[in-house]
């Protein structure tokens, strides 16, 4: 068990290095020169330009530049945001909690929807409930998050006027009132994400449960006289969840992509909207840092999935 976890932790290291190489390659391949402006400026003599290039190491081989860049990133020196005038790591730390709150709560809700609906539908295959649930799952899966977001705004903010459609970071109320306002403005972004993910996971939960429920050991459990509830929850679901966890881990990149879109629609001040505004403002250090942070988050989610496997099926650790 300990060995398995250690191995999973160690696998992270080459992955992080691989991602940093991909990111740096993209950056290095990109055309455009940070000193382009100086090159066309006649007031700057060529020697000064050459000195500046040498000082920043722009003429070094790519490998040297990569090592320098990655050591700086590892030390926590993530650069300076040109647009916001503060250090990039501070900027990201300001924005990250909001994103984690939105993504975290939507993942929990999506999981609850998928498990409840998926298991209920799979225990009654081809019933009316199953057919309705399957249809809704497909429809929810085919509705892109940006469109659901717009429809939600149309219904709940414009027609019914129940919920605010702009997320505010500066709520003045205190105590319970603050929590209430916070909850109200979280509902739409969280639900948009949760419904999309819940819809696609419901299909996987349903088919995984259907695969397991026909196996012999389930029949054995039933013939032992166990209650149906125990059979489903303790015997079927636990084994059915293993492929589901794999799929969920594989879909984490999509989840973060969806979070960027919802943050943009509802103007949630998280790192997704930070990424978009940084791109529009040509703020390269912020763009690189946000992409890197999102990659790390995806990897951490995969690690969490690996840990969940052991909890679901202890044999996995000994393979």
């Amino acid at each position, binding site marked *: 068990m300990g060995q398995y976890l250690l191995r999973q932790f160690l696998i992270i290291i080459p992955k992080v290095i691989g991602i940093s190489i*991909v990111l740096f390659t993209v950056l290095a391949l990109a055309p455009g020169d940070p000193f382009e402006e100086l090159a066309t400026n006649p007031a700057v003599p060529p020697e000064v330009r050459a000195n500046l290039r040498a000082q920043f190491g722009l003429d070094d081989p790519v490998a040297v530049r990569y090592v320098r860049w990655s050591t700086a990133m590892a030390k926590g020196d993530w650069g300076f945001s040109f647009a916001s005038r503060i250090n990039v790591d501070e900027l990201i730390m300001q924005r990250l909690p909001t994103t984690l709150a939105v993504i975290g709560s939507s993942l929990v809700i999506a999981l609850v929807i998928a498990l409840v609906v998926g298991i209920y539908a799979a225990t009654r295959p081809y019933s009316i409930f199953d057919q309705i649930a399957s249809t809704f799952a497909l429809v929810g899966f085919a509705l892109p998050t940006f469109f659901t977001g*717009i429809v939600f705004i149309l219904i709940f903010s414009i027609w019914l006027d129940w919920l605010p459609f702009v997320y505010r970071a500066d709520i003045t109320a205190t105590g319970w009132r603050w929590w209430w306002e916070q909850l109200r403005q979280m509902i739409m972004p969280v639900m948009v994400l949760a419904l999309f993910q819940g819809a696609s996971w419901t299909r996987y939960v349903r088919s995984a449960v259907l695969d397991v429920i026909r196996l012999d050991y389930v029949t054995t459990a039933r013939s032992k006289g166990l209650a149906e509830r125990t059979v489903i929850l303790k015997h079927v679901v636990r084994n059915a969840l293993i492929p589901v966890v794999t799929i969920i881990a594989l879909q984490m990149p999509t989840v*973060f992509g969806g979070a960027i879109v919802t943050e943009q629609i509802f103007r949630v001040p998280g790192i997704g909207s930070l990424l*978009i505004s940084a791109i529009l403002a040509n703020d390269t250090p912020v*763009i690189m840092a946000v992409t890197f942070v999102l990659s790390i988050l995806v990897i951490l989610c995969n690690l969490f999935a690996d840990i969940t496997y052991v909890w679901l099926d202890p044999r996995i650790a000994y393979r």
Partner: protein
Amino acid sequence: MSGSTPASPTVNATTGPAREPKPVSLGMEAWRRFRRHRLALAGAIILGLMALGVVLGPWIWPVPINEIDFTARLQGPSLSHPFGTDDLGQDLLARMIYGGRISLAVGVVAMLIAVIVGVVIGAVSGISRGSIDAALMWVADLFLSLPQLPLLLLVIYLFRDSLKKYIGAEAGIFILIVVVIGIFRWMPVARLVRAQFLSLREKEFVEAARALGASTTRQVVRHILPNALGPVIVAATIDVAAAIIFESTLSFLGLGFPPDIPSWGRLLYDAKDHLDVAMHWALFPGGAIFLTVLSITYLGDGLRDALDPRRVM
């Protein structure tokens, strides 16, 4: 490479595993299975109509997409503008037809790139054992754990301006989007093809070909690949939907096509600030994306059933 053109479904190949006693060909059999999936058939018909509509649309509805008419701003659907107008009084039906061409073209071309890359990598990985296989699958795993949308945004941000300079705004953005989506979507196909190869490689008919002295290339192209393509076709249909969603997401974030090229996502992006007065502007392109993706999903479901001969229906 010539043998991996995904447009030719294996089911039509009469040279596949011979089944003489049966009077129906594999293609007819697949068609019969497909027809029984009524929603898939409906999806195929809707997709066909949409493709026909966006190809022939400009002749049926010859209204320019950029004709500004300030007397008809933000109008709802009417006879002269069946889908209404936007804030500059431009006809939305004409813009939707144009956008549909872009969205569908992006979907199909990006899918082709993803499938070709995926089939090549999967085939190489599946036929060669040992370190090449391990390295390729490690790269696939790495790409699977990359957050695609942020990276897509990063690539587009870095390369957009110079491509625009060399090839022109429309073609430049199109190529960029299509290539980038293709590059980030090859992994599922590669894994599928590899898994198929691992099992097919040991089958008797491949062994027979090997015993007759067929080279590795011939074994792959003539014998293994045609039999591995069924699941690839299903994955390819899903990839079209994913590419369409990706493109509209980019345009919706304001980072895809420029405003003078109204793809469906771009129309939604422009519409989202006028939701209270002109919701038709958002609902038509959003509905079009939804309908396309839903049809493709059902089509993929139907193909999955039709192309798997082991499945009893």
